[in-house]
């Protein structure tokens, strides 16, 4: 590989909550097209880091740069419009709407931007968006659920639908916060397959995960977070053999 | 100049005290049960009408026709005999004279019952429902309460006399060593202020120094954890709702000599009290009390002619204006916690 293109650069980020140093001196570079996993024991600051990237939390110092644009200080919707989509730990979906509409809404956000007073056109006339959404639902294996109410889906299906909602925007960067948390073994395996499938499309992903099985099936690169610091950074094999990592995992959790 | 300002300050105290008491109860209910209670003003109104009912009972009379004496119209003269005086003599007369404070005795059990019945019967089913639905159901209850009162007591305000001995004015200026008769303040309003101060102090002391209060405060901070400790928090919260109703009712009773109660006074005060709660910071008890007095005093200053000459109509909107400014500039209110009820 020649010069790897750095899509996301978390530069010198610190985050303090009162006296707690939740993130210290985080420097993270995510290369284009790779799947970058962030792992670490409970309370290591993984979710805080993700929230800083996505603009939900402002870092105490440092900044996050995405493809030359500084993310720090932007609103979540602006960050999304730059091409970053996020899957949440507990699915954030439109429970009152149908599965199809859940997936059509992000597609419209991609096409129409942050605001458009698209008032007199009928939804039924949006055939292109509709077909796109149906296609995406087929991709994630949810064709049978198109007209169901999103809140009536099983937990695993909600997660898959949320993934479809992110993928339909063709984001340049996809953030996944424990995408298999609370899933059965079967659902976990389908999700891994799904993620491997989209990996082949060359989408950059940052994934936060607990489950080592998931991490080692997907990640190209792993950063290990412990007590707010990155203690190891490298390929899965590097990380697996790193004594500091084993120390953090064995000594840091019960 | 000082005396004018001081007088306006005093004038704001009694209204501020009423706001503070209602806002305190609202905050208590919100903090413990997580319910936005639009019927809280109605509880204040119900309390006021407890005073009205008590006075009606105390002033029952027997009416007999005396055929010996004739009225100027030539009909037999009606002889009215107050029952209380007939039964209890002078003590009866004292009771009638002090009907407003005496009715507190009736108000406390009634309001406690009303509060507990309301919570057990209806509010309890709304803990898990959206705030919009809580607002709607309590709003409906408020309408029901005021219409019931209207159909019993009629639509007109019913002035309640204060005890004869307390009708005068207190020469506060003279007390403080200033010129006599410059700063005078109606005695009853002073009493109302002191009464509120004691009641507020009592609620805080109750929450601060009793085990019950401690559990409730812990529950306000983190309901789930307290529940995990095996403490039956729900029952305590029911009692808190009753307590909030009692506080509102007592505030209503004592306010009747200042403002003749009418059936819609609850709503009038509710709207203002919500503004008070929001200004103080949703969920903060000290905030509610501070904001209650602050807004009462501000309102009093805004109704000075000098101020009205500069900004016409300011007395009509000052409270709302302050609320809007606070909400826009400092959405948590004066002392509120972050993130309460923002979604």
């Amino acid at each position, binding site marked *: 590989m020649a010069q790897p293109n750095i899509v996301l650069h978390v530069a010198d980020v610190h985050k303090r909550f009162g006296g707690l140093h939740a993130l210290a001196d985080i420097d993270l570079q995510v290369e284009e097209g790779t799947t970058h996993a962030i792992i670490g024991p409970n309370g290591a600051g993984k979710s805080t880091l993700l929230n800083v990237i996505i603009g939900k939390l402002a870092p105490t110092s440092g900044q996050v740069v995405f493809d030359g644009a500084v993310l720090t200080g932007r609103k979540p919707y602006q960050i999304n419009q730059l091409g970053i989509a996020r899957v949440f730990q507990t699915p954030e979906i439109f429970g*009152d709407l149908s599965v199809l509409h859940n997936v*059509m809404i992000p597609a419209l956000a991609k096409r129409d931007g942050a605001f458009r007073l698209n008032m007199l056109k*009928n939804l039924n006339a949006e055939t292109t968006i509709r077909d796109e959404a149906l296609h995406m639902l087929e991709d994630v294996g949810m064709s049978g659920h198109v007209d169901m109410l999103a809140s009536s889906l099983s937990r695993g299906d909600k997660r898959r639908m949320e993934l479809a909602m992110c993928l339909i925007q063709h984001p340049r960067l996809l953030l996944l916060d424990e995408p298999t948390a609370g899933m059965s073994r079967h659902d976990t395996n389908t999700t891994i397959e799904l993620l491997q499938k989209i990996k082949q499309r060359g989408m950059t992903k940052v994934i936060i995960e607990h489950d080592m099985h998931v991490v080692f099936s997907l990640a190209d690169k792993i950063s290990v977070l412990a007590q707010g610091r990155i203690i190891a950074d490298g390929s899965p094999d590097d990380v697996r053999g790193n004594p500091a990592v084993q120390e953090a995992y064995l000594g840091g959790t019960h | 100049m000082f005396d004018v300002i001081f007088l306006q300050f005093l004038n704001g105290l009694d209204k501020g005290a009423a706001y503070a008491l209602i806002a305190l109860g609202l905050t208590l209910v919100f903090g413990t049960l997580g319910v936005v209670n639009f019927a809280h003003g109605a509880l204040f109104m119900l309390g006021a009408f407890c005073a009205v009912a008590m006075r009606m009972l105390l002033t029952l009379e027997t009416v007999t026709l005396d055929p010996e004496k004739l009225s100027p119209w030539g009909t037999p003269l009606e002889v009215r005999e107050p029952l209380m005086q007939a039964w209890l003599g002078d003590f009866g007369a004292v009771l009638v004279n002090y009907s407003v404070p005496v009715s507190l005795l009736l108000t406390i059990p009634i309001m406690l019952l009303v509060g507990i019945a309301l919570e057990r019967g209806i509010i309890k089913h709304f803990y898990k429902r959206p705030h919009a639905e809580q607002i709607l*159901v309590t709003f409906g209850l408020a309408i029901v309460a005021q219409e019931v009162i209207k159909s019993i007591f009629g639509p007109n305000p019913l002035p309640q006399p204060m005890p004869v001995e307390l009708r005068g004015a207190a020469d506060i200026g003279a007390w403080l060593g200033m010129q006599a008769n410059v700063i005078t303040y109606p005695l009853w309003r002073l009493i109302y202020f002191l009464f509120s101060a004691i009641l507020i102090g009592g609620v805080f002391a109750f929450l601060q120094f009793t085990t019950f209060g401690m559990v409730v405060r812990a529950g306000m901070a983190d309901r789930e954890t307290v529940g995990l400790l095996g403490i039956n928090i729900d029952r305590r919260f029911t009692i808190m709702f009753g307590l909030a109703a009692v506080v509102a009712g007592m505030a209503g009773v004592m306010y009747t000599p200042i403002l003749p109660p009418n059936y819609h006074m609850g709503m009038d005060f509710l709207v203002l009290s919500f503004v008070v709660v929001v200004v103080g910071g949703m969920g903060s008890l000290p905030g509610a009390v501070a904001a209650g007095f602050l807004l009462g005093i501000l309102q009093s200053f805004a109704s000075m002619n000098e101020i009205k000459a500069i900004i016409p*109509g300011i007395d009509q*909107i000052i409270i709302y204006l302050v609320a809007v400014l606070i909400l826009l500039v400092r959405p948590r209110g004066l002392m509120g916690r972050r993130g309460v009820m923002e979604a």
Partner: protein
Amino acid sequence: MSTFMSRNDLLLLIGFTIAVLTMPLWLAPFGAGYPDLLNRFAIFAIFAIGFNILFGLTGYLSFGHAAFFGVGSYAAVWSFKLLSMDALPALLFAVVISALFALLIGFLSLRRSGIYFSILTLAFAQMSYNLAYSVLTPITNGETGLQLTLRDPRVLDNALFEAGPGLPSPTLLGMPLQGFEAFYFCAALLIVAFFLAQRISGSPFGMMLKGIKSNQTRMHYTGFNTRPYTLAAFVISGMYAGLAGGMLAIVDPLVGAERMQWTASGEVVLMTILGGAGTLLGPVIGAWLIKYFENIFSAINDVILARFWSFLPDGVSDAMVQITSKFVGDGWFLTLGLVFVLIVIFLPGGVMEGVRRIADQFRPSRRSGRPANQARPHPRPAE
């Protein structure tokens, strides 16, 4: 499937149009077939439809919509006084001015959500009401209420026609707007208002509003700036309220500030919830039910009750008269309050949900996997 409108929407619109235009016929047996009441049906239905665009679609509960209604009324009467007795400029002014007013209040109020939003709208409406009663008396004529006088300039009318004797009454392009003419004018506006609401609800914009109600966080992370969406919904619903207020000024050109009081704001909330928030027909049905029963119940007195209960033995019938009289006449609001409480407790989706539940009883086979178009509107609780 037509791209303009789905078959179901078209059928609904046609059915609605027929129902509204034939109201004088089918409401006559219920004693409600006269223009004065029918006008109110149409006016308050428009008010509720507009309110539903905000509350039903976005979930933002405004407690101050009567302010826009009142502003619309005042604007219409001023148009009568200054310009012309014609209804069109009056309604134009009502809509435009209430839109501006809603833009201002909405811009400020929508900076907050949840209960804070409700309180902000309530505070703004109460300010408007209090000012209308006090400082703004030159514009609102305070307690007396704003009304037409013989001295009004009416620039356009006086330039075009000879002034007749007495107070003029509202017209539509020279045709007097009284009796059933007024009703059909109101009915036409109601149908247009319904049609527009249907279009909005079925548009991508409408779906965004529903998305905001369902999960605003997701909307942000999906790339939407939600504030302009909610502001647009707020202004549209303010315009509906202004239109309704202007129409009420046409049929009753004496406008008092009580039209802006928070009780009036509460009434439109009741109508929308009673019928079914978030549905198209619900607010209309709610408005009709409340206005109808208000009219009927208010008119019932003890004599009528005595006749009604006369089949019972004397003592019992007297007692029944006593009891029931508390719920009618002036006691109508008590009945309304009770019904409202019961609806919120047992049927939060309003009449429309009731209708659907009954319909579900008759086709039990289709209940598995609850289709999305039968979703009960249910705003998310605070995070």
